[in-house]
């Protein structure tokens, strides 16, 4: 993708639906992802936003960064709110009370809102088969509340509630495999994406929006504040996460896996970990263990893709 990415930015949709003037941290990878998602979705879109960084930085009353209809209610329920929006449009179009035409109903939230507190609502909405897209922006911890661990925090990472110490390595559990949980709901489209690969990301968003029924996207979202990394390398870190196997890019269409970005040889995980303060405490043997696990996971995805 990167090969021809060089000349294609100029053909990307020019219109911004997530406007400048948001109050996100300098170098926020999540807001870049949101901006790209909104570009891909276009005007005929309704966004339902969970509480979190995105909502806080974009909606300080009476300001809004949103150029599409946007609704925030709570932290854990955006998939359920989206269920109500989608059902309302469906019935009112049937009854002639709402303009005809396709509207993308898109729920979005962070990894805490998705993998932890909102997983029940998301599971319910996916199971019921609503025609909607759920986008999880995965920055691997509760960043808005001050970098506490979530079930998306990678093994070994330091957060304020998984501090490394004499009796702890930091995060003691492996990252929850949420895309697999989404796949287990037998929904038609599941994918991972990264802002370092903007055209792959936008293609997947478009595919998800065009899918009839539920679609789940998990988008890697570098957080310089939470990861103790420099703002100017947020995109670079997102790319390294893919190249090292820390965040593989793949899609699952009607149950069929497809690794959308693969490499003959994965880069050493230290290339990705070294610029991040959250991994600074790890020993060489810790890193070997992590790398082994990540490589196994990528291999598993390759195997599934070749089936």
């Amino acid at each position, binding site marked *: 993708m990167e090969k021809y990415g060089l000349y294609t930015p100029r053909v990307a949709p020019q219109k911004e639906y997530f406007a400048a003037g948001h109050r996100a941290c300098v170098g926020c990878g999540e807001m870049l992802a949101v901006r790209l998602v909104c570009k891909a979705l276009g005007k005929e879109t309704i966004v339902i936003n969970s509480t979190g960084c995105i909502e806080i930085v974009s909606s300080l009353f009476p300001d809004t960064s949103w150029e599409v209809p*946007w609704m925030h209610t709570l932290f854990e329920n955006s998939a359920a709110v989206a269920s109500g929006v989608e059902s309302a449009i469906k019935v009112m179009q049937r009854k002639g009370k709402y303009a005809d035409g396709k509207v993308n109903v898109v729920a979005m939230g962070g990894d805490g809102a998705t993998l932890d507190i909102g997983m029940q609502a998301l599971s319910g909405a996916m199971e019921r088969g609503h025609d909607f897209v759920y986008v999880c922006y995965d920055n691997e911890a509760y960043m808005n509340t001050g970098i506490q661990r979530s079930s998306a925090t990678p093994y070994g990472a330091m957060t304020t509630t998984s501090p490394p110490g004499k009796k702890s390595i930091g995060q003691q559990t492996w990252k929850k495999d949420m895309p697999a949980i989404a796949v287990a709901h037998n929904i038609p489209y599941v994918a991972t994406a990264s802002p370092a690969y903007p055209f792959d990301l936008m293609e997947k968003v478009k595919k998800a929006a065009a899918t009839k029924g539920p679609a789940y996207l998990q988008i890697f979202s570098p957080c310089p504040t939470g990861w103790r990394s420099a703002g100017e390398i947020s995109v670079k870190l997102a790319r390294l996460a893919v190249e090292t196997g820390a965040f593989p890019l793949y899609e699952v269409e009607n149950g069929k896996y497809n690794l959308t970005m693969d490499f003959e040889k994965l880069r050493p995980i230290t290339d990705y970990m070294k610029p991040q303060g959250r991994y600074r405490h790890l020993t060489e043997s810790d890193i070997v263990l992590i790398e082994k696990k990540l490589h196994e996971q990528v291999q598993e995805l390759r195997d599934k893709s070749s089936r």
Partner: protein
Amino acid sequence: MAKKVGTEVSFAVADAVKLADVDVIAAYPITPQTHIVEKLSEYVADGELDAEYICVESEHSAMSACCGSSATGARTFTATAGQGLELMHEVLTIPASSRLPMVAAICNRALSGPLSVWGDHSDLMGVRDTGWIQIIAENGQDVHDLTIAAFKISEHKDVMFPVMVHMDGFHLTHVIEPIVIMDQEDVDKFLPPFEYNNKLDPASPVSQGTYAPPHIYPEIKKAQDVALVNSKETIKAIWKEYGDLFGRYYNPIETYKTDDAETILVTMGSFSETASLAIDKLREQGKKVGLLRVRLWRPFPFAELRDAAKSAKTMIVLDRALSFGGPAGPLCSEIRSAFYQEKNRPQIISFISGLGGRDIDPEDFEAMIARGEDIAKNGSDSEYEILGVRE
């Protein structure tokens, strides 16, 4: 012509919702609400009601889906009870603050633990301060009429608040009563279509549910509170219009033989009809007693209450909920507040009874009035007394 039929009260709720031509229903089953949503499911399955019924996976998601539905401009309904209302609690403040019209039938139920599926007002009191309009029904006819009127109240441009219609679980929801079920034509005449100016629509993007730091949050909350307080006049006007059209009138405070009453019993909900039997009996004995029922719980009708109880020397308030370790039953606290600034305020006695579905008979009400008058004369050791409990 509207006709009177013998029907289960829960079905009269479902019929009201069908007559209102609701667009979206999102509900999760819980006793004693189930008969309402089962009947609605049948109406949708049979095509008698053209609506989307979202079988959500929890009450939290039910109320969340209702928020999304209402924000998109759809007429929206849900029903729940007890623990279900508790699970909804976090979401309830959203439609009140974002001004999203919807109607919720609440089949009042005791709260755990111990587990009780039977009725009292603990769930109702738990959601008192969520910012909803809260209306109390006493019988099946009330339930049917007030549910239809609730849609008009909720969606009125000067109101735009969600409305709860409370009805006692089992004691009301599961009884069969003769009820006049409204005609579709009449309902269509009374209830205009829901027009929502701020609906989620790509043609005119709005942002709903923004974030408010201390420099603006209090202004937003005052605006909300003033609007809720002001909604009382519209509620009264809509109930009057309903009465003028269909002959059944409803008021924020309902009275029974209170005109010259020196002792006034205050109740809320279906037990009021039982209480009136005790009033009749005591009146026959020449006692100047009356009954006052609170129909509108929020916004609370302070002026109407004071006006209705002008002659009272003693007010005896029945609560079917406990405010553990508090000053009185929650209804009594409101009544006491209403009269505190009055020069000639009555004595106001707090009783708690009928918890967890325990019956209160007419004789129990007589005993309650007698005990209340005794306390008014001789005082009591405690702020409130729990009656009908084995000592």
